[in-house]
């Protein structure tokens, strides 16, 4: 298949999957906002279910592959697109015809990728791979992921980092979600207008949601 379209299709499809994943992720994070006695048991048993359910295991692999493919093809596209414009303009007012976000999805995406690596090191490596300090068990015998989360967000630097990264995340999602549908060939005029609004609302919810929870946890 024509690489100009194949690569974009992979990016759009994996991107949409990641958008759905984020909804589930944020919903689960909201458990952290409940009173501690309910939240700890609920959050820990939820994460045990995720780790042990065979279906979720498959989805987890789809998720890893999606992130890798999304980043890999984005890199290929960026390299090709740079080659297509070898000489830049001396003066270019691209802000007058397009948004800064749409011009810098690669840069924003790289920030998010760096965040994902830190985020995986904070949680995934410790809980799933057993690296670093041992994770204690709670009174129900589940790994105390609630404790891992709360202890991480006692560190103000992590709180600031997680909160700041929600800004590029929201920008990336806003441009990415509505563009993914166009890339996949959705061309209904009114539908696209509605999708643009949905993308904005979605991006705001995700940005504010992921950005504010570490702060609430810090002050709780």
């Amino acid at each position, binding site marked *: 298949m024509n690489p100009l379209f194949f690569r974009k299709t992979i990016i759009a499809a994996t991107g949409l999957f990641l958008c759905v994943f984020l909804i589930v992720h944020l919903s689960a994070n909201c458990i952290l906002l409940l009173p501690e006695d309910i939240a700890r048991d609920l959050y820990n048993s939820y994460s045990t279910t995720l780790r042990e359910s065979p279906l979720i295991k498959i989805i987890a692999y789809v998720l890893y592959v999606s992130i890798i493919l999304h980043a890999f093809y984005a890199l290929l596209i960026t390299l*090709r*697109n740079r080659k*297509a414009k070898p000489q830049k303009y001396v*003066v270019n007012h691209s802000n007058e015809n397009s948004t800064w976000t749409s011009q810098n999805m690669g840069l924003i995406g790289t920030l998010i990728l760096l965040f994902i690596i830190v985020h995986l090191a904070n949680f995934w490596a410790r809980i799933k791979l057993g690296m670093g300090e041992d994770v204690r068990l709670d009174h129900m015998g589940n790994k105390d992921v609630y404790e891992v989360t709360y202890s991480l967000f006692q560190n103000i630097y992590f709180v600031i980092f997680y909160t700041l990264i929600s800004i590029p995340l929201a920008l990336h999602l806003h441009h990415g979600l509505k563009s993914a549908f*166009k890339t*996949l060939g959705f*061309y209904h005029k009114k539908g696209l207008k509605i999708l643009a609004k949905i993308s904005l609302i979605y991006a705001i919810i995700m940005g504010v949601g992921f950005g504010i929870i570490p702060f609430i946890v810090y002050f709780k």
Partner: protein
Amino acid sequence: MKVTFKIWRQEGPKDKGAIRDYEVDGLTEEMSFLEALDHLNELLVLKDEKVIAFEYDCREGICGQCGVFINGRAHGPHDNITTCQLHMRSFNDGDTIVVEPWRAASFPVIKDLVVDRSSLDRIIEQGAFISAKTGTAPEANAIPIPKEISGRAMDAAACIGCGACVATCKNSSAALFTSAKINHLNTLPQGKAEEHKRVAEMTFQMEIEGFGSCTFTGACEVECPEGISIINIAEMNARVTKSRIFG
């Protein structure tokens, strides 16, 4: 009216090229931008200097020849116009105006502000036509086409191939141009017979010409003199998938 032009001068395709400054007096607000360049060239002739090469033909916004990058925008500071439709009243007395040729790997500079846009022609050659026996014009109403369909085809057919979409796109993507040409013919019954072949071959040519891929920045539809909607690209994407399945 007096302005300072900063204009890209390049002797030939192999020359490195550089921006050169020209202070030009005696311009009027009514002059079109191309007339201002003409005026500058006349001054250069009197000084026995080489004139600035730039392309134009109709000077009424329909031929698509006069594409140049002016002050950081394709066709100058306004949306949806050609360079010949730009007038000096859009600038102020004493302004500095930077003029550059279209930049894209697929649009090599020939001289000064003139670029080679034949890559777009080669995309056209791959199927932006219908294979039909020529002869006398057929009866206009022999094939009934609803107004909505003919309107959509006409909107896409309005593309004048100026290359502003490629020039303004950070990826030098020719997606708006190619999609306009594809949708123009594929929307109409006359184009249906070859629809899948057309899509596959024109998009393939777009790839081998070295254009980038569309990332929907939306800059193209803002600079397009014909206001061709970016939705055409989404429609082309759907057609690419369809041509893979049914083609």
